[in-house]
């Protein structure tokens, strides 16, 4: 019962902040709502016994990525609002309708295709940092190294893109 109440409160917060992110007029407001949204998702991870991911969510997403967004919004000081220019070919309503169609399709897949839960494969220990670390350094070693190379490439690429002249 307590789990259900907590889930519905967190889910309502996540979706409410999500709506605010995509409807906020100012990009700065949008980013602040996105921070709140990511913190609520971290709470959801704690409910799902994924404490390591909850910490990663707060540190990397809310603390790192969104600060980067905030920096860029502050760097591009706009003299005229980006929504001022209206493209006559743009079909905003059609976009919303298409998104609703995607929602219906995905929900139908989950509602119809969901037959029975697969059997449980093991146990999640309450301290799952050790399990995740072991998986990352043994079974998923090559993807882990590739991810680090990807981060290096992204770092160099971002510097080259953002630098005025090389």
């Amino acid at each position, binding site marked *: 019962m307590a*789990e259900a109440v907590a889930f519905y409160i967190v*889910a309502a917060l996540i*979706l409410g902040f*999500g709506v605010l*992110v*995509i409807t906020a007029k100012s*990009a700065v407001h*949008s*980013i602040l709502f*996105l921070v709140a*949204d990511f913190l609520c998702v971290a709470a*959801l*991870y704690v409910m*799902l*016994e*994924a404490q390591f*991911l909850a910490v*990663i969510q707060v540190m*990397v*997403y809310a603390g*790192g*990525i969104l600060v*980067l*967004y905030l920096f*860029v919004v502050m*760097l*591009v000081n*706009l003299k005229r609002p*980006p929504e*001022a*220019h*209206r*493209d006559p070919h*743009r079909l905003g309503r059609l*976009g*919303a309708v298409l*998104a*609703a169609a*995607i929602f219906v399709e995905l*929900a139908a897949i*989950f509602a119809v295709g*969901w037959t029975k*839960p*697969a059997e*449980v*494969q*093991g146990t*999640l220990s309450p301290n799952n940092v050790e399990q*995740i670390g072991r998986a990352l350094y043994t079974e*998923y070693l090559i*993807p882990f190294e590739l*991810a680090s190379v990807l*981060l290096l490439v*992204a770092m160099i*690429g*971002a*510097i080259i*893109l*953002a630098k*005025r002249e090389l």
Partner: protein
Amino acid sequence: MITTTHYMMLSVALFTLGVIGVLTRRNVIIVLMSIELMLNAVNINFVAFSHQLQNDVGQVFAVFVVVIAAAEAAVGLGIILALYRNTETVNIDEMNLLRW
């Protein structure tokens, strides 16, 4: 009782919010943030299944999704800065140099 289906429905709703943001907003920074929302919806799905199967592989893949999101944000924001320097706009309707 909260089942995995509940988490999947939440994830679908969040993903749809991200799609609406990408399709309807014109500020390219908010479009990138909508993509972050969609990646988060995927992560919720991974973690919900990891919890249901009591298997931590789902969480390992969620960590990889976070890595991809960080790389995407860094490169995407670099592109936005470079575009802003050249065109003085962050409106995706005005970024139509490659459109025929």
